[in-house]
């Protein structure tokens, strides 16, 4: 009774909540339930209710299917490369920017390096396609400086992973510095002054003051990144894939798209997607635990 009265008193707030709630239920939670088709031989004509139940059949197929194993390997390898190269790039750029004393110069550089973040992947890869053509500017430079033969960057499978990482570095490194620079803005100048009085050179100041100031940010972002190790960016990879590099470049998300949407193998694609979501859930919960064990706050 008391609860009903409270409900009535807050009726307008529930009214405000309702559209969003419906959205979450229909487009976020019903699809979660829709994952049951991974346990069926789903056919769109028979629908969720009348398709045959086949238990774990599709999940058993995941590890027997050579292509899926390869795709999982590609995903992990690409994630590893990104953590190894793209992640530290932001840290290094933050350190460089933090050493700049001229405020105006710093602001201009920041404006430039943040810009690529706001371009779409289509635009970035479109520019890269022309940039890296066999008769594009990069090949011309390589030819005139080193006398090299033109390289078909976008077609050669061996260049696929390096290009993906380079594109991520170009697009996101600047944006990635914001969170580190924010952490550095809180460092008291008195610390640097004291260090200078003690005779610390620039390198020692970075080592003993700047880096410790962003250590916890680095740890928490790294752990979060490990938690989403199976997410490597659908749009970018989808746009970069072509028949020549598909074997080396296909990752879990693109595999699910090709299998499910293009080949209409709904159940198997859903099983692979569900497998990915589930592993992702375990990883992110684990990563959060790990963050807390490191004495960090965690993310939730």
């Amino acid at each position, binding site marked *: 009774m008391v609860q009903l009265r409270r409900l009535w008193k807050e009726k307008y707030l529930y009214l405000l909540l309702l559209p969003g709630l419906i959205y979450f239920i229909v*487009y976020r939670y019903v699809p979660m339930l829709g994952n049951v088709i991974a346990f069926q031989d789903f056919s769109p004509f028979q629908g969720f209710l009348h398709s045959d139940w086949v238990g774990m059949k599709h999940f058993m197929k995941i590890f027997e299917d050579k292509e899926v194993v390869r795709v999982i390997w590609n995903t992990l390898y690409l994630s590893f490369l990104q953590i190894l190269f793209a992640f530290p790039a932001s840290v290094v750029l933050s350190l460089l920017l933090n050493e700049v004393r001229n405020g105006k110069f710093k602001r201009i*550089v920041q404006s430039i390096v943040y810009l690529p973040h706001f371009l779409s992947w289509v635009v970035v890869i479109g520019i890269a396609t*022309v940039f890296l053509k066999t008769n594009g500017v990069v090949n011309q430079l390589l030819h005139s400086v080193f006398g090299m033969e033109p390289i078909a960057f976008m077609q050669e499978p061996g260049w696929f992973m390096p290009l993906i990482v380079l594109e991520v570095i170009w697009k996101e490194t600047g944006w990635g510095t914001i969170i580190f620079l924010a952490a550095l803005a809180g460092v008291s100048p008195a610390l640097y002054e004291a260090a200078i009085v003690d005779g610390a050179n620039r390198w020692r100041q970075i080592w003993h003051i700047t880096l410790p100031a962003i250590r916890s940010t680095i740890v928490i972002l790294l752990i979060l990144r490990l938690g989403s190790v199976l997410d490597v960016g659908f749009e970018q990879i989808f746009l970069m894939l072509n028949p020549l590099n598909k074997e080396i470049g296909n990752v879990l998300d693109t595999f699910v798209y090709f299998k499910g949407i293009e080949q209409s193998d709904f159940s198997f694609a*859903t099983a692979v997607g569900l497998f990915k979501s589930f592993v992702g859930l375990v990883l992110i919960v684990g990563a959060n635990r790990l963050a807390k064990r490191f004495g960090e706050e965690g993310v939730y």
Partner: protein
Amino acid sequence: MIRSNSRLSRAADIINYCVLILIGIAMLFPFYYMVIVSFSSYADFVQQDMLLWPKTWVLDAYEFILGSKVLFRSIGVTIFVTVAATLFSLLLTAMMAYALARNIMGQRYFLFMILFTFVFSAGIIPTYLVVKETHLLDSIWALIIPSAINSFNLIVMRQFFLSIPNELSEAALIDGANDLQIFSRVILPLSKPSLAAFGLFYAVSNWNAYFNAILYISDPAKWTVQVVLRQIVVLGQTKATLSDAAQMAMAQNPPPTETVGMAAILIATIPILVVYPFLQKHFAKGVMLGAVKG
């Protein structure tokens, strides 16, 4: 601030500035190259006589694009989607965020429901099937409704509403306003600058959205600008995509795919460059707010 002015420190400064200038050039050079390619003539581009500066500036690529309705129609579609989706998202997000910022019954469960979508996603195929079942397939509403609320923005906006002092709502309550009136007459006007910031971020992501468009839209008349750009630049299907212009240009030599592609990208990127200064004012704040836990 005391500075160490040793010669070594000076040298380090100079090296640092040089490295940053080089990084800045690396970020800008692709833009520059895009511009000069778009203004290059066929002969210059094919013979590579325009490495850093075109021999002759020509408008062939732009004329070719103007001869086709396809790109401009897609820009029209994208403007509609961006405006509609941004307003719809903002409204839904603000309403839900405000309700959750007040201490309503069941608040904990609603918040859990939202936070859970951070760690577990439904997956591409089931979401596609739901969009299909709700009859949005091949409708531009498929680009607006299924991605209406970004959970992250919702949590950040709720955090913002929590920071508005309670006294304001209480004063309105005493004046006899109900919660709907408090929301629309007190809270929303107060939040205009923040709503503008969220709106900008939603708008940019809608303008750049590509995944939903290829997933849900197959009718070329409803293609968004990003899909058309992909056809032209990444797949190199300029003539097939802009077929009306290609027919008109048959008589002369049509410009190469690359120059048309770069011109199209430039046109499609102008809106982003226009709002960039406004975005910049807000994004440090946005990231900082994001660091506050929900």
